[in-house]
Structures are given as structure tokens and as C-alpha cells.
């Protein structure tokens, strides 16, 4: 099992991308999911649906529209240019943005469900114990939503690792910059370099398995407590 320098670069880039995207998504989706879990507004249904939208378009097609949207002639591209912010396509930042968009629903959903499951009661108890809304969130909501956060992280991470169509489109397959491992494996397969594809795939599967099994073992420990300490 020999890995080429390009393979190793791709692995490194993938880890960087997936970790960054997961962290950013968790941060970004927390308020969205919280709002969706608590609001009574009629906007809830539509916004929930919008969150799931990136899913229904084929990734490459989504990538195409992203290209149009972010490109120099697209509305977002012009906005960014107006503020003198570098263009996103064909850059690592572009990959991050695109991956975040595409993995958004997988992070919002578990968080939202976890927040719903917590209910009002523990928050009320905390409020009477001088815990401000922010403090409540940190010390009551977060620990109680741990399972949801782990699910969200797992789905977000795994999906970003495997994500490919959008990346291919928005990334432009630039080594060290946007050529992630999924693209690398794809190239191997398309180029009939099956041996290399097998090696890389295996590596990726093993690595991901270890990461996920670790994440889940945390969840399992947490679950034991939760079931024992379940809401009265």
C-alpha cells in the first residue's frame, strides 16, 4: 500500500476541510436549530424546508448553480467583489462554503430534534436558579443535547468527507487547495487506476470508522447516564 504525495496531500486537505466545516456548521446551525425548535412562527415550516433544499439537487448541479451565484457575474460574487473580498470559487474558502451549504440539513436536523426533546422543564428549573438564557444554554441545553450534537457532528463530518459533486464543481480540482480525497479517489476510478482507488478507499473507510466509533462511544456513555437520569 503505497500512497503518492498527491494522495497524502488530499488526505490532509480532506481532514482540514471536514473538521473545519463540521465545527463551523455546529456553530452556525445551533441558533438556526434552536429557533426552529422553539418558534411558533408560521415561517417555521418553510424555513425548515429551505434548510433541506440543498439536498434535492444533484451535487454537481448544485455546484453549477453555486458557480453561477458566487461567480463574478453572480449576485454574491459581485457583492463580495464590492467589498473587495476575494472570490470564492476555486479556493479552499469556496469549498468550505459549498460544503457547509450542502451538509447544513444533516447538522440542523439532529440539533433541532435534540432541542425539542429537552422541553421546557429543565430550562425553567435553571431560570429559577439564576441562570441567564445564555448560561442555561451552556450548562443545561448543551449537555442535554449531547446525543444530538454527536449525531450532527457525525453526519456533518462524514458527509463532508464523502461529498464530492459540489466540491468538484466549486473547487476546480486544484492540488493542495481543493483536491480533496474524494476527488482523488474519483479520479483514480475514472482513470481506471483501480488499485490506487482501492487503497485510498480502504484507508478512508478505516479512518472514518475509527473516528465515528470513537464519537459513538462518547454518545453511548452519555446515553447510559441519560436513560438512568431520564426526565422524571
Amino acid at each position, binding site marked *: 500500500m503505497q500512497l503518492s504525495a498527491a494522495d497524502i496531500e488530499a488526505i490532509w486537505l480532506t481532514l482540514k476541510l471536514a473538521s473545519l466545516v463540521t465545527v463551523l456548521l455546529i456553530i452556525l446551525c445551533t441558533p438556526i436549530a434552536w429557533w426552529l425548535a422553539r418558534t411558533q412562527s408560521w415561517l417555521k415550516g418553510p424555513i425548515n424546508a429551505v434548510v433541506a433544499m440543498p439536498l434535492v439537487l444533484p451535487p454537481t448541479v448544485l455546484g453549477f448553480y453555486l458557480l453561477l451565484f458566487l461567480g463574478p457575474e453572480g449576485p454574491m460574487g459581485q457583492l463580495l467583489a464590492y467589498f473587495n473580498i476575494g472570490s470564492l470559487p476555486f479556493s479552499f474558502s469556496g469549498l468550505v462554503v459549498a460544503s457547509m451549504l450542502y451538509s447544513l440539513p444533516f447538522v440542523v436536523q439532529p440539533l433541532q430534534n435534540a432541542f425539542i426533546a429537552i422541553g421546557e422543564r429543565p430550562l425553567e428549573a435553571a431560570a429559577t436558579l439564576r441562570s441567564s438564557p445564555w448560561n442555561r444554554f451552556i450548562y443545561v441545553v448543551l*449537555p442535554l443535547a449531547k446525543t444530538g450534537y454527536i449525531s450532527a457532528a457525525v453526519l456533518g463530518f462524514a458527509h463532508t468527507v464523502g461529498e464530492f459533486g459540489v466540491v468538484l464543481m466549486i473547487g476546480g480540482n486544484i492540488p493542495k487547495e481543493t483536491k480533496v480525497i474524494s476527488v482523488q479517489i474519483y479520479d483514480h476510478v475514472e482513470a481506471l487506476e483501480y488499485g490506487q482507488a482501492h487503497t485510498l478507499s480502504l484507508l478512508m473507510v478505516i479512518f472514518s470508522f475509527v473516528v465515528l466509533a470513537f464519537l459513538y462511544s462518547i454518545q453511548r456513555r452519555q446515553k447510559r447516564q441519560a436513560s438512568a437520569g431520564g426526565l422524571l
Partner: protein
Amino acid sequence: MRSSPHIVFINGHLFVCCAGFFVQYSKTTKTPSLSRRVTVTVKQPAKGLNIRVFQQHTGQSNFSLDLDLQLPNTGVTALFGPSGSGKTTLLRCIAGLEKSVKGSTNHISLNGELWQSHDFWLASHKRPVGYVFQDANLFPHLTAQDNLRFSIQRADKTQPAIHYDDVVELLNIASILTQYPGQLSGGERQRVAMARALLIQPKILLMDEPLAALDDALKQDILPYLERLCHRAKIPILYVSHSLDEVIRLADYMVVLEKGRVLEEGNTQRLISTLGTSFARYQDASMVVSGTVVEQNTEWGLSWLGFENQTIAFKQGKEAIGDSVRLRIQSRDISVSLSKHEDSSILNRLTVVIDDMEKDNKDPSMVMVRLLAGNTPLLAKITALSAHSLKLEKGQTLVAQIKSVAVLS
């Protein structure tokens, strides 16, 4: 009703506690009292807990809470009323857990500090309350210990009147501190919840049936502690209870709710002694006698309370000669006779005058006799047959035999 000495005394007692005038407004009984009567307007929040709320739940229920209360800022105030009468809802309003109904002129303030008005809302976590929920409501992800720690870390450090070790010992929870709420029994959970609410060092304690899940023996331990604690810390307690016994024992002031409205309200003693109040449905009316300890006998374990030239023997406690003591005497424990019988095991035989008699509507076999020992009123519940055969009538002088006596404070 005359402004009889006992009322003076009780109010006097309250004055002492309040270090100020005890403002009291009784909608239903309309009894004038020595305390300064104030018709409170919204703009003018008085000392104590001022509450005016109109609250409706969203959804099916046609329940609404609609009341206007001025509660003392010291001692225990009992919220009493049948299941579903709005006791929990009221506590939740006070703690800021129920949202205001739109357009209502709600008003809540404690000791002049405004918590809520038509255009103001103090968030729950800024109201210095300690709340014991009816269902404990511990944090399921924290052990009992960490539930307490949660509270301690957020406690008001400027008035740390309540000490961890005391609370843990009293509530007998030392052995279960490492367990998660899901691993605790119902009563254990409730005790941890109580400890948690105390350790936040509140300025008012809201307790929603905290003792319902506890056995008598434990109640006997916890109740006096609570009383002392709140007395010492000078924090008022709003205490929801179904047990009239508990209420009588604990509460200086009480509010009776029914269907979200105040049915009666006022000093516990006065409320309960008023014949024909809503308490007819509850068996055990009782009265309080206040006085000073005049004699003690350690051999027999008894003390004697002197009041208006008579004495009552009671079980000796920590009181010393000269102390002021309040005794509770239940109507079912008083019998009357026309003469004093020295050969009976009943120690207490007071000379009394019949002030009033009233048939019990619900139980025609019984009459409630209101007796005056001097100016102190007592209630005796006796059979109608006895009343008839002894030819009892108003103004008659009798001997009241008192079997047992409970010390209140």
C-alpha cells in the same frame, strides 16, 4: 369581631417579624383588623409581596387565574385549595415562568422591587426566588450533588444565610448525592429539589407541595427546620399544601384559592376560627393560644403556658420560663363539661364562656362551639346530642377539657 387581645397579640407578633406594618387586605372576610388597612393601587407597591395577575392558559382549558393579593414579607404564607385551583399557576407567575397575557395589567413586586407590570418584565433568572417544583424537576444529566452545585455556583453570595452542610444533613441526602435523579426514589428527588432551592439563597421561597412525597417522620423533622430557617433568614415562604394540618402548623397567613379566584385570605388563625368559612369541609379546625411559659417540670416533661390567668400544660421543648409560645389546639381535642373532674387523665381544664355555637352543615351530628377563655377564642367540636343534653347556650360558663396540644413555635 372585636379587636380582641389575641388578635393584637398575633398582629404584634407579626409586627415584630415585619419590622413594619403588616399590610393586609381581605376581600372576602372584610374583617377590620388592627393592622393598617391599605387599598393598594398599582402605582403604589407596598412592602411584602404584591401580586395582581390575570393569567389564561393557551389551548382548550377554560381556566383563568385572576387575583389581587398583598402578602406579608415574612413568615409562611400558605396557598391552599383543591386540585386544579391554580396554586401552581400562581407560583409560576410569581417566578416569571408564565408569560403575561396580552393587555393585562399584571403587577408583581416584592418589597417595593418591581418584578412585573404592564410595561415591565423582570426575567425569571433575575427574580431572587427559590422554587421547589411539584415534580422536583431536577436536572437529569447531573447527579444530586451536581444539581446542588449548580445552585450554589449561582447563589446570591451577599446573603449566604443557608449552609450546605445543614441542608444536606437536615434533608438526609448525604448518602444519595452521587446518584442521578433517575436513580432516586420520589421522596429523595423531592428532598434534593428542596435543598437546591434553598441553596440559591433566595429572597422568597416558593414551594409547591414539597412534603407531599415524604413520610410523616421526615416531615416532622423538616417542617420545624424550614420554619426556623425562614424566620432566621427573614425570607418569606409561599407554600402550597393540600394538608390543612401542615398549613395550620406552618402558615401565619393563608390564601384559599378556588377555580383561580381567591376564596378567602387572611391570618391563618382568624380564617380558621371564623365559623362557617370554607373550612367546614375540612375536619380539623383549630385555634392558637399565645402566652408565656410560667412553669416547667422536667421530671414529667411538661411546661405550662400562662395566658389570661389560666395555664395549659404542654410537652416540654426547648423553651424556657418567660418565653413566648404559641400553642395550637384542635377543635376535636376539646370537650366541655359542666364541672371540673380531678380524677380524669385530662390535665388541662380551662374555665371558659360560650361565645357562639353553630351546627355543622355537612355533619348534623356535630356542633362547633366557640369558647372564650378570657379573650382567647377556642373551638370545640362536640356532638349535637351532648350540646342538647348539657343544655349548652351562649354565655354559659363551662370547663373546657383539652386532651392534647401542639406547640407551634
